[in-house]
């Protein structure tokens, strides 16, 4: 979620300031996000925040007995790591889509009609939503699978870790089951995305 909202913000700002420095800056951030191997990023974050500075815990999920605040600290690094990639991917898509829409005639017409900046942006947002939503669904699936690498680094007892263990123990039934569950999550999610798209965009409902 962090990644999605940051990505949308990045892409939108970049497109609105097309060609000027915010565009360059946010495009650079997005491209970095796309090319980061997240397992490496996780290691670097652990190295920086936990080993060199001792700000945050390096691994694990913390004890159940710990107060909520302490347990949230265990969440920070994995969440940041996992949100970087969707941020990059979505940032790039939002930028491309919004640029395309800004080039359309109705945006010029709205501006000519005297609408101020924010209502125009709202109109653009409505039109840019469907492809972005579709990609979000895909990215979510990617995260389901991608968390296997990050869970390995942070030693989290999640589905990714289970998958990893199953592979190394040649435990084919567990492997099949985990992948089946994750893939069905993915399918259901994409179905939800399709329904949401139809709700937003009447053109798809036909």
């Amino acid at each position, binding site marked *: 979620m962090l990644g999605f909202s940051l990505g949308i913000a990045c892409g939108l700002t970049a497109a609105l300031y097309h060609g000027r420095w915010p565009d360059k800056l946010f495009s650079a951030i997005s491209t970095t996000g796309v090319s980061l191997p997240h397992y*490496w990023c996780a*290691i670097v974050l652990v190295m920086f925040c936990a080993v060199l500075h001792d700000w945050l815990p390096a691994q694990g999920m913390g004890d159940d007995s710990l107060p909520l605040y302490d347990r949230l600290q265990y969440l920070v690094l994995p969440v940041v790591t996992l949100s970087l990639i969707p941020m990059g991917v979505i940032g790039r898509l939002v930028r491309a889509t919004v640029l395309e829409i800004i080039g359309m005639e109705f945006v010029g017409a709205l501006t000519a009609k005297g609408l101020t900046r924010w209502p125009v942006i709202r109109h653009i947002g409505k039109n840019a939503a469907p492809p972005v939503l579709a990609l979000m669904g895909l990215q979510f699936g*990617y995260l389901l699978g991608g968390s*296997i690498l990050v869970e390995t680094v942070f030693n989290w007892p999640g589905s990714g870790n289970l*998958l990893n263990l199953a*592979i190394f123990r040649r435990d084919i039934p567990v492997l099949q089951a985990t*992948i089946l569950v*994750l*893939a069905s999550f993915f399918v259901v999610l994409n179905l939800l995305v399709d329904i949401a798209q139809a709700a937003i965009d009447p053109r798809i409902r036909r």
Partner: protein
Amino acid sequence: MSDATIDFVRRELLAQADAPAAPTPGYWQSVRQRLARDPVTIAVSLVLLAIVVISLGAPLVTHYDPYAGSVLARLKPIGTPGHWLGTDETGRDLWTRLCYGGRLSLLAGILPVTISLLIGGFLGILAGYAGGLVGTLIMRTMDVFYAFPSILLAIAICGLLGNGLSNSILALAVVFIPPMVRISETVTTQARQLDFVEAARASGTTTLQVIRYHVLANVLGPILVYATSLISVSIILSAGLSFLGLGVTPPRAEWGLMLNSLRQAIYVQPYVAALPGLMIFMTSMCFNLMSDGVRSAMDVKLNK
């Protein structure tokens, strides 16, 4: 009309008659010109070239054996005399391992994309050009693969086949075929509806020739650009597979594998441990930026 005007009109008409031969080289020429004016793309391509050259010429830039360790020289920091990037957990020179590792990492990144480009491109063009039953059959089969998130599919195939470089390449190729098919199908469907393709068909050109001259010329560009952007994903994924222990087997040098074996050392030598990942990051970033540069240079709409 004066003689000058007639002369002018005649010259214009002659120029127009000559024109049909010109557009194709003109387009690629302008693409090349735009690329030459793009400093980022040029810089990035040079970095990539450097990485490739260093990996291929690894024995020339380093005199260490990538497999020969030394118990005494384990986990030396960056800047140690003799080992300027330090050593890994069994005392092997890291610079040497990085150079040799580039070979496998680049191979494992580029080969799957090439395979899927050939197979996926062929299937996609077939589906797009033939349409109808054949098209539906191919596209629906690909949709089945789309039901799995890409990493998960790669891990599943690798997990079932067992580890090894060839298996991880195979797994990634399978993962990349569906998007490749989809892209080439979309572009081919668009190209098929262009007027000159219709004209060529109407004038009795055989299907094979239409595909070879007209469709391929319009389709290859976008597909290749997409393929270069896939290479960066492919490098990250293949290194990720060996990071999990599914790809290249030790003691061979590969960036993902090195990252995993150095992971335990981050409390001792944090900077050394981060280096293989930095290489993966840099390579994939360069491929991304290069593909962006080529894409915007080839986009006629953006460059009016």
